[in-house]
């Protein structure tokens, strides 16, 4: 009974989403990008990423063999970009999930318990809000061992604060509703109120927030990698490390635009796609935003 109703609600939500052309376009883009990233090992050969086995010349311009040219070591830029999407998407998604999870838990706990719990948690949140998160992330990744895990941790730990504020505000409005009081009078404890009433009401907001946050996480990942704090393994490139090596190899001076543009444009497209999806979702879940 419950599941059938959820199914119907989902279908109604989808119809509303499908009405928005930008949202659909963003979703289409995402599907294509994710498919390419997932299928990269199938449609291409990872061997091509190995500098010792590279077949092309140094910074060759685009040709039939290398549609986007080659880098300094003679590897195909198309291949690098394709494999880079795996890294960028993984870090973007996992870091966002981490950040949203921390933010949601802290936001709900602060709003639900109030008093000193709220005061303590919100001061911690404020601390993370005022600190420049990039600086903090750089500091974190310098201290910890370099690698994909560190990058995810650095991004996740520095970007949850605004989400926590948002979730806390939403929780406060939910907790003021009389049905929470009724639930307490029925004998419901903290766990019951939080899981049965607060969480389901907060989740749509969290979901939208996640979609919008993935974009900034991907940008953060590229920034950290560009600054040389990314995964140093050449077999696991990311768009950020590509931009870094392009800069180190003086691609601009060499006039090798094919080295710089693909990762840059790829970042732009993915962030745009996530934002378009997120905005469309937001207006589905929050009817007040629908144009009228």
């Amino acid at each position, binding site marked *: *009974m*419950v599941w059938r*109703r959820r199914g119907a609600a989902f279908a109604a939500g989808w119809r509303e989403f499908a009405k928005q052309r930008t949202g659909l376009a963003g979703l289409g883009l995402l599907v294509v990008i994710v498919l390419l990233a997932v299928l990269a090992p199938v449609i291409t050969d990872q061997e091509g990423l190995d500098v010792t086995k590279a077949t092309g010349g140094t910074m060759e311009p685009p040709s039939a063999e290398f549609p986007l040219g080659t880098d300094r070591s003679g590897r195909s830029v198309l291949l690098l970009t394709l494999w880079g999407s795996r890294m960028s998407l993984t870090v973007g998604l996992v870091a966002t999930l981490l950040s949203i999870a921390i933010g949601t838990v802290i936001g709900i706990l602060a709003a639900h318990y109030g008093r000193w719990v709220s005061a303590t948690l919100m001061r911690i949140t404020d601390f993370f809000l005022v600190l420049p998160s990039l600086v903090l992330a750089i500091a974190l990744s310098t201290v910890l061992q370099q690698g994909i895990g560190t990058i995810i941790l650095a991004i996740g730990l520095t970007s949850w604060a605004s989400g926590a504020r948002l979730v806390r505000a939403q929780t406060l409005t939910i907790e003021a*509703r*009389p*049905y929470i*009081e*009724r*639930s*307490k*009078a*029925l*004998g*419901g*404890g*903290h766990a*019951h109120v939080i899981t*049965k*009433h607060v969480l*389901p*009401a907060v989740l749509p907001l969290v979901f939208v927030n996640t979609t919008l946050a993935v974009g900034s996480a991907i940008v953060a990942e590229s920034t950290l990698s560009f600054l040389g704090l990314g995964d140093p393994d050449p077999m696991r490139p990311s768009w950020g490390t590509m931009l870094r090596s392009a800069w180190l190899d003086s691609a601009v001076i060499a006039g090798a635009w094919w080295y710089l543009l693909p990762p840059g444009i790829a970042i732009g497209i993915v962030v745009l796609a996530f934002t378009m999806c997120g905005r469309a979702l937001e207006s589905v879940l929050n009817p007040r935003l629908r144009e009228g």
Partner: protein
Amino acid sequence: MGEKTALLELRDLSVRYRSGTREVEAVRGVDLTLDAGETLGLAGESGCGKSTLAMSVLRLLPTSAEIGGEILLDGEDVRRMKWGRLRAVRWTSAAIVFQGAMHALNPVRRVRDQIAEPIVLHSKTQPPAGELRKRVTELLAQVELPAAKGDAYPHELSGGQKQRVMIAMALACEPRLIIADEPTTALDVIVQAQVLDLMTNLVAQRDIGLVMISHDLAVLASTCQRLAVMYEGRVVEEGAAASIIAEPTHPHTKALAAAFPTVGDPEYRYAPATNSPLGLPDPPAAEPAATDGEPLLRTEDLRVTFTGRGRVVTHAVAGVDLEVRRGEIVALVGQSGSGKTTLARAILGLQPPTSGRVVYDGVPVPATSRALRAYRRQVQLVLQDPTSALNPRHSVYESVAEGLRIHGLAGGENGTERERVAAALEAAELRPSEEFMPLLPHQLSGGQRQRVVIAGALALEPNLLVADEPVASLDASVRGEILALLLRLRAKLDLAALVITHDLGLAWNIADRVAVMYRGELVEVGPVDEVLREPKHDYTRSLLAALPTTQPTQA
């Protein structure tokens, strides 16, 4: 006399709302006339079209409304007026006292400026500041407010004072017709009586016409000479107020009249149940059984104190000793702010008392939330507004089963849960229960929602219901049904109830005993017959005196 054009004349007025493909007929062919110096009461439940009718007089309806028929204001058809003429007519010929003074005033402007606004807008030249000030002071005096109140912001005024400001605004341009849309709905009985007095005097002194809209027949009867009862967009009954109240002919008028009982008239005791076709199974014993012995619930010198900003201490509940016996309905009455709701929350363990204690069945109620769980199976809460008391995402089934699941009583959807939910829904008279289970709150009417809340409470088989204004947000006819349900539940399940209300009529309707609360203290407690017929405390007397009576005063 006959040659004179009426102040307001509605001829075959109809209003239709169009939204998308749907069409709603809000007003269907209404004919009404009103002469200067006359007062007309317009009664009806929410959704009967009474407010739409009022707004149509000044063409204040949204663009989706289609108006048919004629609206003659001083013989001039409002529908055919040009925009400029309409603007001139608004407020100078007819003014409206809007519903809900809390929201109709601008919170960031002083009330003096807000009263002056229509005067400035309607004069051709900017009136000199001194003159304007004098006029506003004059208007404030007319509504019996001191001139100093003009410099206040709306939040600094009480509900009654705000309503007076609204009336002063309506009088600003000396209109000949005033339309008052539920002018006293959100006000306490005592304040309501003052506002009604004021409006009656103004009409008498200034020879203006008054159309007053309300769902409360008693309010209309005490201020209006004539009454029109609306039902589903039509005027179903019209005539002199006294005769309509005395001998209602339309069944709907009868229902409205019955919903506002005459306090002190034995006919209205337990009337909601005895008058309904379902009846009252076993009329409760005249005397509540066993006056001695341990009561079901007892509060001992209960106190709740709040410390606000700047260390302002408020004694919301100041030493209350209250008893509720098994199978007894006790009404807790008092004005808003008297601490009734805080007392109820303290009894339910939702608000920790500052001192004193609550004793249930001889055992003090514990303070920790874990220990409270067992107690909360026995005592259940019914809230004022059923719309917000139900989680909009939960189906009827889930809402009713919530308590069972919290207490792990029915072993989930595979156990006996479904039977128990069905039984609770049946007990709350939602039949057939199967059909209601999958529905969401927004698919139900207000009365049905309140029944779901009651069913959710009943599922735990409690001994005591604490109902905080259980019918205040419901329509008159639904109100009777819910009260009847409470009475029948008491008779069938021996369920005790503490009903919190500001409405003495409700107490007279269903309660066995009544406790009058004033400023955090119980000033009078006793059987309903005694307290409401021969009140001993001054406060109880003033509450009773402020009740609008359905017998119009022949003064």
